């Protein structure tokens, strides 16, 4: 059998299973096989993924919807869905929450399931929500310091270290926790005490 791309004998018979259209069979000589394996071709998982995404999104959505989805941005790392779609790699753990609805059909397509059934880490405090909350708290603290609201900044600092020490986020929403609005309502003379 001859190589698909030249007159040499095909010594490599490659079955490509990653394409969404089903298996593709290639017959290549050594040289073309090497090129095939070295390119970012359909064998590359990221490329296979972007192909799958493109196909799926086209099926599910009309162009206008797609444009809206593409503009979605992760509040944590700033990556857009369009950037993810092109590169096939996410920007940070929070993307799984920011793009949850758009990733779900993809996850079903790849894995058949959407719920983790495997190992649970002993320290499961590494949730993306917590990371985002920490980021927000740190920004608020920076802001408070800039506005010379030092008491508020101090409270935020305690809050940050509590979250960092592994305090659950739920306690923040409990009645005894201070919601952000309380800080704004503080009278100006409160700052003078610090």
């Amino acid at each position: 059998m001859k190589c698909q791309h030249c007159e040499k004998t095909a010594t490599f018979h490659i079955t490509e299973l990653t394409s969404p259209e089903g298996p593709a069979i290639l017959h290549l000589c050594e040289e073309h096989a090497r090129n095939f394996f070295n390119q970012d071709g359909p064998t590359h998982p990221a490329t296979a993924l972007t192909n799958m995404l493109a196909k799926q999104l086209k099926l599910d959505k009309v162009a206008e919807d797609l444009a809206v989805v593409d503009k979605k941005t992760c509040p944590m790392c700033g990556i857009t869905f369009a950037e993810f779609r092109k590169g096939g790699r996410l920007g940070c753990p929070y993307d799984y929450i920011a793009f949850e609805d758009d990733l779900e059909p993809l996850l079903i397509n790849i894995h058949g399931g959407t719920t983790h059934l495997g190992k649970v880490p002993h320290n499961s405090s590494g949730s993306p929500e917590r990371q985002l909350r920490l980021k927000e708290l740190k920004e608020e603290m920076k802001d408070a310091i800039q506005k010379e609201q030092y008491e508020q900044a101090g409270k935020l600092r305690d809050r940050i270290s509590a979250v960092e020490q592994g305090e659950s986020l739920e306690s923040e929403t409990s009645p005894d926790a201070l919601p952000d609005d309380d800080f704004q309502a503080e009278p100006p003379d409160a700052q003078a005490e610090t």
Partner: protein
Amino acid sequence: MKLDDLAHQTGEWMRGNGPESDIVMSSRVRLARNLADFPFVRKCSDKDRAAIAAAVRRAVDSLPLAADTEYIDVSKLGDLDRQFLMERQLISHELSEAEGARAVILDPHERFSIMVNEEDHLRLQVMQSGFDLETAWHRMNELDDLLESKLVYAYTKKLGYLTACPTNVGTGLRISVMLHLPALVATKQIDKVFRAFSKINVAVRGLFGEGSQFMGDLYQVSNQMTLGKSEESIMQRVSEVIPQLIEYERKAREFLVNENRDDLHDHVSRALGILCTAKKISSEETMHYLSKVRMGVNLGLIESVEIPTVNKLFIHTQPAHLQKLCGQKLSVSARNTERANYLHQHLIDPSEPTDPQRN
């Protein structure tokens, strides 16, 4: 442990023993993990990457691992060393070619490696010679538990371990079994077998994976799904498929022997003849003939060569290995000459130590 010493030793997966090792070269288990406090690698600043590498290094240093476990800064390695580690399957093409702070942590016996700042912050890999996923997974789970006691991983209850690519999310587990399937290739049944396997969501890929040029009728079988199943059931899935593939390959070998034993004998002997007598030979051609010789030895048609020798030659004749072994950089043409010398020495020199446990 120096990289140059590594070149002379035989890594775990090249030992050529373990269950079903006439067909199964190695069993590998890989886990993808990311630190909760950093963005994924594509969004990392140089500072982030350096901080991740430092955090992993601190964690690894505090673990009860073998004393000569080595932390290698891949960004400081030259082309030859990086290619060498790649040929040995200790780092990936992606890690080799990436930029910025990145590292690999190596077990002195090459039973595990940990890549830092590859596609994910951590890629843990455990290797086992032959078909032995259970041992591989057991060791991997222990290593993961150890690291996890020092590092906080990005994780949610719903999606499990979060990874840069959604194809790895959940368990982050990729199981790969490398098989030598020369008879399925020779009888042109390999495509048919793969088509059958694609229906049950098990990926079969030629050679060593993307970006690699390793050849020689070597195929990798791995799971595709990582989410929605436990590690054990993913392992089970792959474990069930491998014995079928082994069976197909054995039948194909039997068919080749029955069809015309003399022709087959001639075929594999000529392959050995070329490897023993060539004066210049490329690595692709070497792989091509080594594959035939390996089958010939396993079928009892070639008696002068041992399987561990063939396995070793698969690796040692790769370009970077060859240069490491002879201690100097060589042009392509000089490598082809050196490779022919090396093959000649190891295939026909009677002083070559032999393994008495050959099957």
